[in-house]
């Protein structure tokens, strides 16, 4: 299975994703998305930390594959450190110094005034931790949603929430064919590897990269044309009609209500 497919879908049936997996996709999208929006609105650390905690509690007790959530979370430090660490210094965020790191000597550097010392400020530390926590909260919530919902149900859920069918169709096709394109690119790469065992000059390497991008583009165009033809052949005339959705159970309602109450609580905390 290709890289993209592995990220998008682990192939588990809905029944093997714990009780969270059996909640209606619409309820999960609605509830978790609501908390996710709240996480981008709150401005203090406590509700953000609660958010992360809630996502992990859901992952742990929802009976879903915790490794997928953990894996997604691994990506957070790499990205946030690069952005958040500089924000904690006094050169970026003004504030009361907490730790003095080194002597900079003051004066001016171009249009900027250089401070006497490089310090970690209280305000900077707060901004940095808020950024890191917010990223962790969003990534955890999104990956809980992804791990607890099969992609095909996720798209169905979006449609059930009133997202236009054509829009969902495009999104579904993008994930559907992303895997195919990755495999296509892998094939082109392998075909090249098998033909060039010796060293290759940089110039030839560049020429090859350009050529294979062209080939990938050509292949994806051909595929897109065929998909459109296959749709027309089965009666598509410009408007997509899709299956209706199943009924909500009391559990789906309770899940959404719980999410709404939790989100409102977070907002109240600030």
């Amino acid at each position, binding site marked *: 299975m290709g890289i993209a497919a592995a990220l998008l879908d682990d192939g588990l049936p809905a029944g093997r994703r714990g009780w969270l997996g059996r909640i209606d996709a619409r309820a999960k999208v609605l509830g978790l998305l609501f908390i996710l929006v709240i996480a981008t609105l709150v401005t203090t650390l406590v509700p953000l930390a609660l958010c992360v905690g809630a996502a992990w509690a859901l992952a742990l007790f929802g009976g879903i594959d915790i490794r997928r959530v953990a894996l997604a979370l691994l990506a957070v430090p790499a990205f946030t450190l690069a952005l958040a660490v500089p924000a904690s210094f006094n050169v970026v965020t003004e504030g009361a110094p907490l730790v003095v790191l080194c002597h900079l000597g003051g004066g001016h550097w171009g249009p900027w005034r250089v401070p006497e010392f490089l310090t970690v400020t209280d305000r900077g530390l707060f901004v940095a931790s808020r950024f890191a926590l917010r990223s962790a909260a969003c990534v955890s919530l999104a990956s809980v949603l992804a791990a607890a919902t099969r992609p095909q149900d996720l798209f169905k859920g979006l449609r059930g929430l009133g997202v236009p069918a054509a829009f969902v169709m495009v999104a579904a096709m993008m994930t*559907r064919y992303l895997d195919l394109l990755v495999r296509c690119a892998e094939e082109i790469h392998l075909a090249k590897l098998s033909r060039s065992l010796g060293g290759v000059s940089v110039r030839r390497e560049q020429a090859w990269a350009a050529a294979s991008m062209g080939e990938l583009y050509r292949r994806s165009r051909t*595929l897109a044309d*065929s*998909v459109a033809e*296959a749709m027309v*052949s*089965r*009666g598509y005339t410009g408007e997509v009609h899709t*299956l*209706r959705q199943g009924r909500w159970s009391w559990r789906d309602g309770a899940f959404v209500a719980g999410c709404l109450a939790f989100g409102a609580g977070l907002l109240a905390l600030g």
Partner: protein
Amino acid sequence: MDKVFDFRGVSFAYPGREPSLRDATFDVGEGERLAVLGANGSGKSTLLHLMDGLYFAQSGEVRAFGQRLTPEAVERPPFGPLFRKRAGFLFQNSDAQLFCPSVEEELAFGPLQMGWKEEEILRRVGDTLGLLGIAHLRDRPPHGLSSGEKKKVALASLLILSPVVLLLDEPTAGLDPRSQGMLLELLDDLHGRGGLTLVTATHDLELLPHIADRVLVLGEDHRIAADLPTERALGDTDLLLSVNLIHAHRHRHGAMVHSHPHQHTRTHDHAHGEGKDHLH
């Protein structure tokens, strides 16, 4: 009675290219099993696209079920939707054909576009999957399936509409022998049971007797080189040589060099002068 298809002097060229099909005249009757046989690039897929109202003749005339196929005709009710229901096209590339997020939605796609009732659709999805023995795939996303399973799902997505004619573009290409066998059996079954009309594009001579009673041979000049019963097509070495489906094969047995038509998909016996028989 109307012919299923009637082609009169049909030519077609892709934009800015030489014609991919020249002056094709033939017809297909109800319940026939026709093969479109030709080397790669001879225009088989192009011909099937013309039959399915996806491309349109630039000169000449294509009729299906008595109605001339034009861009307007295949969209306008009542003929348009009826034609789409009656003609099913199995694409060579299953990945192009399976574009929905799950197998169930894949099967439901055609009926939904045609405005069938939802309960009816769900019932038919179950029936059709059962018929092909793939009920267990119902909730699976198509991209994770094996190529044999993909072909079956693609076929199911056509059969759910109860088509009158199936257009099959190299249906067994890329399938393992077992899936090939199952597919051929299934097509045979469908033809025998419902009088389904089958049009199969292929360059595989071995496949021919299993899928067709009549063969339309396309030459490399994109013209119809012959239209004849399957046994006669298979027996006509000169014809098959001229359209590049078999090639002359020269080789040496001891001191003697000889040449004979040869097709690489099958082993065959032959004898020559000194009585030394051997096998290729």
